[in-house]
């Protein structure tokens, strides 16, 4: 966090290198979050660009209450929500799931199979957007529930409810699949 503060401070002083450093540090995480939320790589890239343009413009006025990563993640979530509202992004169909964001896939590093990933992606896509957002901000970006509540200007309990309902729905959709994946992995090993 201190490093981020220093980078932000340097950028405010006019260091474009500091800005590049911040961008390089978070670009992939943020792109991943944007893709997860939007299911649309093009929309995700647009969101990433909009967020960094806005961040560059407002850096002087920025008062970070949380970490820079949390701040940028919140911006991505807000931006995706805007884009979604404008483009009326629909939830993906199962046959589309898994085709998204697979550019540059590196099989060696994957923890789960493409099928498993597609199933989860499909299940996530069935969630109401606000529940998906809370889940991803917490589990993908590591934001605390309190930070999410503050960034969305809602009560902590509202965030916790969305999270809980979201997980409940995922559990219901993925019911039984996780165990079978575990079994498959054990048998492969």
């Amino acid at each position: 966090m201190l490093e981020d503060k220093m980078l932000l401070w340097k950028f405010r002083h006019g260091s474009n290198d500091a800005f590049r450093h911040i961008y390089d540090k978070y670009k992939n995480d943020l792109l991943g979050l944007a893709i997860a939320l939007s299911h649309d790589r093009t929309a995700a890239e647009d969101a990433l660009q909009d967020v960094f343009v806005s961040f560059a413009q407002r850096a002087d006025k920025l008062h970070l209450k949380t970490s820079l990563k949390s701040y940028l993640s919140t911006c991505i979530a807000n931006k995706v929500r805007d884009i979604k509202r404008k483009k009326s992004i629909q939830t993906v169909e199962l046959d589309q799931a898994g085709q998204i964001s697979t550019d540059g896939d590196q099989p060696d590093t994957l923890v789960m199979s493409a099928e498993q990933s597609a199933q989860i992606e499909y299940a996530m896509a069935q969630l109401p957007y606000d529940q998906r957002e809370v889940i991803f901000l917490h589990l993908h970006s590591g934001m605390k529930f309190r930070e999410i509540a503050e960034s969305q200007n809602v009560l902590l309990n509202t965030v916790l409810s969305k999270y809980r309902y979201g997980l409940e729905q995922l559990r219901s959709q993925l019911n039984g699949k996780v165990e079978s994946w575990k079994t498959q992995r054990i048998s492969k090993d």
Partner: protein
Amino acid sequence: MENSENIERLIKAFCTDKNSSARTTEQLDEKILNAALSAREEYKRTQSAQTQPKIWRIAMHSKLTKLAAAALIALAAIIGINQFAGGSVTFAQVIEPILNARTVILDYVIGEEGEGPEIHDIVIGSRIRRTMSNIDMTMILDPRVRSTLSNMDMTMILDLEDARMLTLVSLGVTKIASYNDIQGTGQESLLSVLDFVRNVVSEVKDNPDADIQDLGEKEINGQKAVGFYVKGLSRELTIWANKKTSLPIRIEFAEGKTSTVVIKNIEFDVPLEESLVSMEVPAGYTLKDTFLHIEDTAPDNLPEEQLDLSNATEEDLVESLRIWAEIILDGAFPDAIGTDHFMKQAYVLGYKLASLGLPDSEMEQFPKGMIFLQEFEFGGKWGYAGKGVKLGDADKIILWYQPQGSNTYRAIYGDLRVAEVAEEDLPK
């Protein structure tokens, strides 16, 4: 049925999986960075134009700026006109308009012509409308404001009878008026530069022993002129007059030991609108009581400018230390710390922050941390050992304090992390 923890683990794994495949391309990086950095440049340009009212507040509510502005305006108001006393001569035609004209337009240059500041006076009776040129008025401003401005215009209407001055300042789109009492400079000695010349001429006129020398002729700005050197009781003048009209066209005198004042472009009894020297605030200007007090009696903290220094925390102290080391001392912690040291450094910080174009928040942060420290400075247990320590030195404790009711100390290290430390582990 999956439990919540399993689902959370699954989603985390999914996120890790997706992240590993979510990579930006070089083209995307270049596109985003170019867009962002260009947007920042554009934003900075438009902001400087849009934030002038704020700039005004920054400019004029700094005590240092107020003092600088006061000094400049006071100087401009009284320069060359309040340090003499009052004699007769045979060149009556030349001095007649000097002595009797009700309206005069003149310019005078202090120092070398073309280099020194030029003051333009329109004199109507006992009032003067004064403007200045060839002087960077913005020098009185905070550097961060100065860099954003192309011009700052200031007009002063001086009422020498009532010893009041109406100052009109135009700073970009912002127009501010203020009344200033100029009695402090000595009302009885408040004279226009024309009054000064009149006084010297009068001294000579009434003194049969006065030294008056004919300097012959020379051409001044295409006009044939005749010159007179006049030595009064206290001052001496050189007056050049148009050979045909006998009207003075140039007057020179020494100002102090090294500087000269040249009065030129003189016109007498020109029909002028009285409104030019009106002491009413013109339309479009906002009257500010607090813009400037020559005696600097204005309160420093105006309600709208008060900093929020409430609820100072340890984090603020850490931030103050970072600013002190990083901005003021280029990476080193100060030799000593405390309110008195802070007071000495505040302006250095102010100008450093200003020159770097940093936002007000950095200015606010610095004193806030010092306020937190004051809680311990006056009566609490604390210590400082930052002398010689560089910012980032993780092994050295630079500052420690004992929170109320605690048996241990909060210690701040050179890398600005904070830890609980027992008394025996503190620097000796």
